[in-house]
């Protein structure tokens, strides 16, 4: 379908971008890879008189070693992330996730920043980035701040990003010794119906010292299975494998999974349980 008319702006610096955001306010949307936004504009469920492309701003797609974390520029595409040596080395579970998003065309065009800020609930990155303890760097004309991935998405298509702010980088901590993370999802028509992310850290004595279990895609925001994550602390690998199905059951049962055209709520809860257990099984193994 033909899009409604809009003006396209292509600022080359962050100050020029912030000026445009200030001038056009709610009349403007930021355009990154466009894989979500253009579909919504074509369907005419959204319209903005002004689109502001981020692509001419240098450095926003950089992926760099930032000491204790890997800094992924908001404009890095899923394909670039999947193949980047730093991501493959330090965050192999996330590289694998990136390589399985939608299809090759979406991975080549779609950006991580766009994915997070659009906050379409049927997305893979949020749950895994939350399990990895990622922080998001948001910049505005007046400064910059960080927001934990765990707190960034408020609900369907709603985030912590304020008017005048843009997401510039996703900071993912480098894993400590004994840490392993994995993500598994099930989806039809290129979007996940349910995803499970597991991060497990084992100490030198072979006991679990930290864990994070997150469910994605079943409701408006990713959900932490906090009691299950606390419950595995101190267990060895065999004990985790044996205990986990029962440990996650109450929190899976309590998931606010909505009925929609991706499936019924109880079906999504079943998928979430299965995907989480598969992710945990992959994270609960010795790295190859």
């Amino acid at each position, binding site marked *: 379908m033909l899009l409604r008319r809009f003006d*396209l702006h292509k600022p080359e610096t962050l100050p020029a971008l912030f000026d445009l955001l200030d001038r056009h306010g709610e009349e403007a949307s930021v355009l990154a890879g466009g894989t979500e936004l253009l579909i919504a504009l074509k369907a005419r469920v959204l319209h903005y008189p002004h689109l502001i492309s981020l*692509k001419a701003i240098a450095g926003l797609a950089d992926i760099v070693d930032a000491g204790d974390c890997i800094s992924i520029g908001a404009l890095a595409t899923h394909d670039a992330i999947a193949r980047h040596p730093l991501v493959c080395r330090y965050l192999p579970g996330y590289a694998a996730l990136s390589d399985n998003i939608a299809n090759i*065309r979406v991975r080549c065009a779609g950006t991580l920043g766009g994915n997070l800020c659009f906050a379409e609930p049927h997305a893979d990155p949020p749950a895994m980035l939350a399990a990895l303890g990622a922080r998001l760097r948001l910049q505005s004309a007046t400064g910059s701040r960080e927001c934990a991935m765990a707190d960034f998405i408020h609900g369907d298509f709603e985030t912590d990003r304020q008017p005048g702010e843009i997401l510039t980088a996703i900071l993912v901590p480098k894993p400590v010794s004994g840490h392993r993370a994995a993500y598994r999802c099930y989806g039809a028509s290129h979007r996940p119906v349910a995803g499970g992310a597991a991060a497990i850290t084992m100490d030198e004595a072979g006991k679990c010292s930290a864990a994070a279990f997150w469910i994605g895609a079943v409701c408006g925001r990713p959900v932490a299975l906090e009691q299950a994550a606390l419950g595995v602390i101190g267990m060895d690998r065999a004990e985790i494998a044996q205990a986990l199905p029962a440990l996650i059951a109450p929190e899976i049962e309590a998931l606010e999974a909505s009925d929609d055209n991706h499936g019924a709520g109880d079906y999504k809860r079943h998928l979430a349980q299965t995907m989480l257990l598969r992710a945990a099984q992959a994270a609960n193994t010795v790295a190859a």
Partner: protein
Amino acid sequence: MHDLAFAVNGEQRSLQVEPRELLIDVLRNQLGLTGTKRSCDVQVCGACTVLVDGQPTSACSTLAVEADGCAVQTIEGLAKDGRMDRIQQAFLDHGALQCGFCTPGFVMAVHALLTQHEKPDDATIRHYLHGNICRCTGYVKIIEAVKSLV
């Protein structure tokens, strides 16, 4: 209106386009390159796959102005001197098409695949082509055609 200057199948083209115009419409309606097909219109089916600076791209969901300064390859650019290129020939030799509507997108996706992966294994081929959908033949002959090129 925005200037759009890009190389299409190696030929430099200059146009004026509205920001809202999609690459597929410029290719099909303004340049007459109707080999690129519109189908799902939501980046799922792959029928509109073209290469923009070598990257497989859904022409249906790409603003034409974003191709400014880029090299765009479409199915029309593959045959030389009336002879199909090796990927098109392999599809023909293996009967890897039926109605043919999805074929230009598949061929362009395979082009990108073989540029990125010199010798892709079965899993790599299937993973890369996962986003191209054929509703006639199934995928066995398409995979066989690709494997014949490796």
